[in-house]
């Protein structure tokens, strides 16, 4: 039943509001990691294309990928992707409630399970590629 006076003050929102707090900035960086995920897909498809086109084409790709701007870009991308990994795994147990024989598994264990799966998969991929 409280009628607003109509005189109340509304604080304007700055365009770059996420600069105002560290936690907001971190959030925006986390969201931007998706751009680098997309870059990775592009890069991956270029690689696939190169391999599909034969050995010389693959060699050219490796040359190009060694050029400094591509390397730097990939390094930055890797940093962002790792930020993605850390935040994603950190938040995962908040969305899922896993139960084992009626008991809720404590969140730290769920996080640990994620990292374990991550290490395992990474090892398999590395093995398949480098075997």
């Amino acid at each position, binding site marked *: 039943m409280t009628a607003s006076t109509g005189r109340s003050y509304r604080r304007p929102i700055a365009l770059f509001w996420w600069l105002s707090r560290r936690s907001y900035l971190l*959030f925006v960086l986390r969201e931007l990691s998706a751009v680098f995920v997309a870059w990775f897909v592009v890069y991956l498809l270029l690689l696939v294309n190169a391999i599909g086109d034969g050995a010389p084409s693959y060699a050219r790709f490796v040359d190009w990928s060694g050029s400094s701007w591509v390397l730097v870009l990939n390094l930055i991308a890797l940093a962002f992707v790792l930020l993605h990994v850390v935040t994603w795994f950190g*938040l995962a147990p908040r969305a899922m409630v896993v139960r084992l024989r009626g008991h809720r598994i404590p969140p730290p264990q769920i996080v640990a399970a994620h990292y374990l799966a991550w290490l395992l998969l990474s090892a398999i991929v590395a093995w398949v590629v480098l075997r």
Partner: protein
Amino acid sequence: MADEITLEVARYRPEVDSSPVMQSYQVPLREHWAVLDGLTYIKDQLDGTLSFRWSCRMGICGSCGMTVNGEPVLSCATFLTDYAPGPVRVEPLHNFPVIRDLVIDIEDFMAKLPTVKPWIVRDVQSPVEQGEYLQTPEELEEYQQYSMCINCMLCYSACPVYALEPEFIGPAAIALAQRYNLDSRDEGAAERLEVLSSPEGIWACTFVGECSAACPKGVDPAGAIQRYKLTAATQTVKNLLMPRSKR
């Protein structure tokens, strides 16, 4: 320890100000004094025109939320000595219209709350004479965390999505809906689904997570929303695969 500390308090008097102005006061710096004690000192001894809400001064009534040095906090549970030597900046909670000084307008939340039906919904009410609905401690634990919300609005104040999209139902209201969805006595989940999984509901949340960081009662609204996203999405897929079954 210095024996005084400066409070810089946001003043907004709609009759004279077009936007808030900061005013400084010197208050005693004493052990055990909360920011709220500083404010009541100002009101009682220095300036009776300062307006703010408070009641229980034990962190349970949810009235005294303010922005202190940029962070949304309960002013009765935030201590001056933690900010020494000061100054301490006290502003109203962000993301809400300011009625006066440190008093914000929370009618928006009060209007949204009933839309998520935060009460027990049952197809059949069994009469009280038949005794309690049984609920094991484990079933209680399932929703207990989400039942701790004191409606203090700190989460809304911390959430940038609420700032940008005032239609967003918001963290506390969704957590309260989940509190009932997860209660073994409740059968209203289907009724709450529509509002919760509307664009103004859970899908507006981008999991900034600041709501949970700000929450003084460990409610974890971000987690509640996230869990509900999973539930709602699975439900949608089920409905797509088996369009005829009702639930």
